[in-house]
């Protein structure tokens, strides 16, 4: 049944939100964002199966491309921040606080 796939997608998305708002390690926060993207992908593919059209598959491919771009940029930023502060704590990275 299609409902179980959508329930699983909801559970994974909620776990991703919990990871983003409750952890302070940069890498864990980053991978939680990736987890949310994957949950959205699962919903896309499940709905593509329901309607038997492949637009959801194309959208899932584009989400993967966006995730790859995000990974490249975010890891470069993390390397720079680690070089400057030698910490991995998101509370330390408050440069925009004013």
């Amino acid at each position, binding site marked *: *049944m*299609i*409902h179980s*796939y*959508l*329930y*699983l997608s*909801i559970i*994974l*998305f*909620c*776990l*991703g*939100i*919990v*990871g983003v*708002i*409750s*952890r*302070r*390690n940069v*890498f*864990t926060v980053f*991978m*939680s964002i*990736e*987890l949310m993207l*994957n949950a959205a992908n*699962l919903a896309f*593919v499940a709905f*593509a*199966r*329901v309607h*038997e059209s*492949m*637009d959801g*598959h*194309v959208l*899932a*491919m*584009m989400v993967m*491309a966006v*995730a*790859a*771009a*995000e*990974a*490249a*940029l975010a*890891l*470069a*930023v*993390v*390397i*720079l921040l680690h070089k400057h502060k030698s*910490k*991995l*704590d*998101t*509370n330390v990275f408050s440069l925009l606080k004013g």
Partner: protein
Amino acid sequence: MFADGLFLGFAVLAVLGAAGLVVFRHPMNGAMSFVVTLISLAGLYALLSAKLIFALQLIVYAGAIMSLIVFIIMFLNIQPSDLPKEETKLVYILGGLAVVLPIGLFLAKIVKSLPLSSTAILGNDFGGVKQVGLLLFKDWLVPFEIVSILLLISLIGAVVLAGKKEAVK
């Protein structure tokens, strides 16, 4: 049914991997349990007869992106003393679950109102490379080109950010 058993196994593995990602202290342990989630999601895509997405999930996500993340984690050589001290982590996680639970229940209520439909595995090339590729280059050509520009920009940005000091100045 065999497919139902496979779905149950993959779903339990995916949720356990995601929970491990949220709970583990060292990012390397979290990355390894996230790889379990990604691979079981690939199995779920195969059960939804999305053949191309199944292969791409394994090659691009579990292969390329996760190896990049693991490479950076190992490159920074993180000692346990470098990690942020999170004594109240469990309290925060429980609080986060309490915040997110209403949203999840709301979404579940929406899903419940959807009509039932079967997920039996489709034959006749649904989700194969040829069909998805034709769709991608016919109906989705402009978004595809925009994604290629996005990848180019992120490439330039990564080189500028992580390059030599002279390049930044």
